Every structure is written in structure tokens, then in C-alpha cells.
């Protein structure tokens, strides 16, 4: 199976009055075609910035991005248009991700018009209706404006838009965090069905560990711009090794009254302008040793196939 996406030492820094914000600080990643990759991390860890850099909505500060073996790191506007067909993004907030002045039909027709995906207007309309039905919506939703739709419906339009370009790789930025639990179930099942039907590769980012576990083949855990653990989802979920991963998993309340939170993470995430010396998790780490404050740990492969960035291994 070939790698649909490969990133090498990708960095994205922002300039702020307080200093350089190292939002993404050296990420290596390979995504296989057909897999679902889940990236988990709390706010400020850089996961949103990472996918936007990969999608070239932001320009990388350093490193390389390969999409289907093409180096897209330095693509300019004209070349970028083509990759917008191959990778797409579903946004977190359904209430702000649709243009309020465009009907559903207008929104969904843009991908066809930009990339010439239909021979004529009739064919495009058929395709749009097909997409709507695939999302569990009706033909009549075409004439609606976003404010006439519910959150769940809006999110489905956002997904339909991402699928309309006929991508190979779809990114999801917290796709259900703004939705109710009952709607979440519908969306997740829909996405699962769609992935199988169109042979897509999915890249989810979320702070919801349970969501990531349910949907992913492989997961990665990010902290302050760096990848601290990455590997097979079940392996990591059953037995997290990195102290941050362990703490994070233990901080998620379990919907079972007999299981209470124990050994949750302590402290707060430091500012990305001034990350700690050495391992940037060391100040909060219950298992930190001397080395942790001096030297930054690199990702190392363990026997079970996963990689961890920690001096304890």
C-alpha cells in the first residue's frame, strides 16, 4: 500500500508580539492509502495548524509535504488548485463553515465549477442531488440557506462539499464536537459508510479520545507542537506508554458511575512561545528524570511497532 501523504520534519511558526509561536515543531508522518488516522491532543497542541499546513492553507516554515509522491511544499497558487481536488477539509463549526449568502445548491456547485467536474448543468444537478441523498438529506434542501438548517444538517452539507471535489484524502477538524451526541452517532456512521464506498483515506483531529479510538486505525498524540506517541490505535489505547498519553486518557471521564477519574493530568499547558527546556512535557510529568529537562527526546520505535518520544524508553 503506498503512502498517500508523507510529511518530513514539518514546522509552522508564527510571529507574535510575544515571540515566535512554535505551533507545529517538527512532525514526521506517513499516511497509507485507505487508512483512518486520528490525531488527538488538547487545544493549543498544534493539530489544527498541522492539518492546515498540510492542506497548504498555510505556508510551511520548514520541512516537506509529499502528496502521492509529489512535493507540494512550495506549490504556488496555480498548482495548489489541483491539490484542492485531492485533499479536502470538513470544519468543526457547522454554524460558521457555510457561506450565509449561498444556498446549499450554490455551495455544492462551486467545487464542480472550479474543477470542471461536470459536463453541463444537468449533470452537475444530478450529482448534487446524489450527494444530498447520500448525506441523508432531500432534494428540496438545495434551495435552503444555512440559517434554515439545523447544526447536524449544516455539518452534512459541509461533508458533502468536501466530498464533491472527489478527493482521495479527507481531513476532519473536530467534525462532531459542535453537535449533540445523538446527531454525532448519525454523522459517524455516515462517514464510515462513505469511506468504504469511495475508498477514501481519512485524517481526523479531535480532543475527544473516545471519538478517535472509535474511528481510527492508527493514532497520534500531539503536545505543544510535537508528536509524542504514534502507532496502531488499539495498541496505544490499550496500553499508552508516553506519560502525557497516559495522563490524557486518564483525564477523560468514563460514562460509568463506578469508574471515577484517577491520576488525571495536573498543571496547565505552557505557552507555545516559551516551551520548557528539554522535553516540553517534563514540568508536568510525574515520571520525569534528570535527562528530561536537558535533552529533547526523539521519536523511537518500540517492539510493538509504536513510536514514543520519551527518555523512559
Amino acid at each position, binding site marked *: 500500500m503506498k503512502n498517500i501523504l508523507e510529511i518530513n520534519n514539518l514546522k509552522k511558526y508564527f510571529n507574535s508580539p510575544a515571540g515566535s509561536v512554535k505551533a507545529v515543531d517538527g512532525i514526521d508522518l506517513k499516511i497509507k492509502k485507505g487508512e483512518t488516522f486520528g490525531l488527538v491532543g488538547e487545544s493549543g497542541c498544534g493539530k489544527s495548524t498541522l492539518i492546515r499546513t498540510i492542506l497548504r492553507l498555510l505556508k510551511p516554515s520548514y520541512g516537506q509535504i509529499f502528496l502521492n509522491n509529489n512535493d507540494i511544499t512550495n506549490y504556488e497558487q496555480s498548482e495548489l488548485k489541483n491539490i484542492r481536488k485531492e485533499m479536502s477539509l470538513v470544519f468543526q463549526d457547522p454554524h460558521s463553515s457555510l457561506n450565509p449568502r449561498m444556498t446549499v445548491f450554490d455551495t455544492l456547485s462551486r467545487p464542480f465549477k472550479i474543477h470542471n467536474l461536470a459536463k453541463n448543468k444537468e449533470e452537475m444537478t444530478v450529482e448534487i442531488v446524489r450527494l444530498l441523498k447520500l448525506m441523508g438529506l432531500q432534494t428540496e434542501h438545495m434551495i435552503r440557506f444555512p440559517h434554515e438548517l*439545523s447544526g*447536524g444538517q449544516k455539518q452534512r452539507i459541509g461533508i458533502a462539499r468536501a466530498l464533491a471535489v472527489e478527493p482521495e484524502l479527507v481531513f476532519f477538524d473536530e467534525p462532531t464536537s459542535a453537535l449533540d451526541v445523538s446527531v454525532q452517532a*448519525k454523522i*459517524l456512521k455516515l462517514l464510515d459508510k462513505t469511506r468504504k464506498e469511495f475508498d477514501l483515506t481519512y485524517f481526523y483531529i479531535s*480532543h475527544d479520545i*473516545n471519538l478517535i479510538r472509535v474511528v481510527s486505525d492508527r493514532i497520534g498524540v500531539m503536545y505543544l507542537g510535537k508528536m509524542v506517541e504514534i502507532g496502531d490505535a488499539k495498541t496505544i489505547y490499550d496500553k499508552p506508554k508516553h506519560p502525557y498519553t497516559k*495522563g490524557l486518557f486518564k483525564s477523560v471521564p*468514563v460514562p460509568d*458511575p463506578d469508574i471515577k477519574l484517577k491520576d488525571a493530568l495536573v498543571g496547565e499547558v505552557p505557552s507555545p512561545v516559551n516551551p520548557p527546556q528539554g522535553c516540553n512535557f517534563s514540568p508536568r510529568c510525574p515520571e520525569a528524570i534528570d535527562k528530561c529537562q536537558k535533552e529533547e527526546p526523539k521519536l523511537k520505535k518500540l517492539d510493538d511497532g509504536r513510536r514514543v518520544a520519551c527518555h523512559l524508553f
Partner: protein
Amino acid sequence: MAAIMDINNLKVSFSTEEGELKALNGVNISIKEGTFHGLIGETGCGKSVTGRSIMALLDNNAMIKEGEILYKGENLLNKTEKEMQDNYRGNELAMIFQDPGSSLNPVFTIENQLQESVKMYRNTSKSKYRDIIIEELKKVKLPDVENLLEKYPHQLSGGMKQRVMIAMMLACNPNFLIADEATTALDVSIQAQFLKVLNDLKEKLQMTVLYITHDLAVISEICDYVSVMYAGNIVEELTVDELFKNPVHPYTDKLVHSLLGPETQIEDLVEIPGSVPRLIDPPPGCRFHPRCEEAKEICKKERPKLKKIAENHSVACHRR
């Protein structure tokens, strides 16, 4: 255990340009003293409106149509604004909200914010203020409290601001705290710390808490009892244990089974067909009937009342 608050048949509507929005359709909640009572429901079900009704903090277009809110035997709905301000808000009833950023006054230092509460509700001399403030801040496990006093809200993180909010509430020494989606905007690790603080306080102070949220996992973490709300009605009231082991109402059952737990697989996820009704024009009878597989004729005509089916377990359903 006695009930410190009884909400009986509360009906609240809002006048909007599209008509009357019938937000609360006869809400019944009984909260036992000293417990953490969860109020769970999805967006738009009316849980926030319920919390604000207790505090008399509803918007101008709100109309209280029927019902009573009995707190320690007194009906709060009969109190004037002045009575609520002087006698209830702060010292008896306190509320913390979702967004800690907008609840703190940006031009006051932390010490000043808390001073207000202490001055109003604790009868002590001015010299003791600082000590009380430090004590409250320590209760919520805020680090480096002495330095914190001079800081302004914008210098604190979201989690710390939320904890300052709790400290402010505690400084008032309330008997009844309403927390409205207090952790929704927080990161998982911050939420965990916040819940731990609440749990610790539960043991120390004899406070009753109405915890409003859409997150069932949080309810399982800190609550003893829970009322399940759907489209303006309480459909079930039960212990948290029963909620996860034996949910009776069709909606509660589906809700619990659409959760993502550590063992769930996508195939297991239960969908609820249809969507939440618009409360401008709610379905007649039981408001859940359009989405219920077991709905019968009576469900379309008559709203089911909450009836007791076991000790500490009531359900509002014609089919149960």
C-alpha cells in the same frame, strides 16, 4: 433526605417574532439537600432556561406561565427582583456559567473580584477580607495564590478563570449552586481538575449542586441523581447508577447507547431518527413521540406525567 428544591410543573415561554416559543412545558425536578443533581439534555431542550428561572435571570421576553420553584419551602417565582437580589442571589443561590472569560470583570484584579463577594456576604471586618479570599482560592486548588491576587483576568488561563469563578461563588457561601455547562469550554485535563475540585468541595461543604450539562460522562463522574430533559420536559428522574444500568424512557435509553465509551464500536452506535422539534410549534402530546418507535395513539394526544416506578426513579412515558 429532604428536598431543598422542588420545581413543580414549571412552564416558561418566550415571545419571539415567530410566535410563542414554549421552552418549558411543565418541568418537575426534586433536588435533595447536599446532593449533586445532574440536569442532562441536548441543545435547546431547556436546561439552561430552567437554571436561569431559578435565579430569576431570564431575558425580558420570557413569560412564566405556570408552576412554582420551591426553595426551602418558599416559592421563588413569587419573590420580587429586590428580594431575589438581597436575600437569595449570592448567599443562598449562586450560578456559574460556561464561559469563564466573560463572567469576570476585566478591569478588576482577582483580589477585588472576590472582595465584592466577601464584603457582601460575610460579616467580618475589612482586615479579615484578604485571609478569607486566600482561603477560598486555596480551596479550589489554585497555585501560587498570593501572586494571583494582583493579576487581572486576561492574565489567567481558561481553567484558572473557571476556578476563580468557583472561588467567588464559594466566598458568598451559597447553599445551592447551579453550574451551567461549566466545563464545556475547557480542555479535557482542565475539566478533570475542575471536576476533582468540585468533588472535594462536595465532601467538605454541605452544598447542593444542580449540574447542567449535555455530557453524560461528566454526570457519571460527579452526580448522584439526574433528571433527563427533552424538548422542555423532564422525561426521567433517576440515580446515576440507574441511568447507566437501567435507563427506562426510550429517549434516555437511546441517549445512553449513543455515547462513545471505551468499548464502543461504530456498529453499536444507536441513532435517534428525526431531529429535535422546534418549540414554536412542538408536537402535541408527548414531545418525543415523532421519533419514538413505540409511540401509540395516546402518545400523540396526551402528555405523559412523571410517575414513580421505583424508589428514586420516575418516568414520563405512556409505554412504561
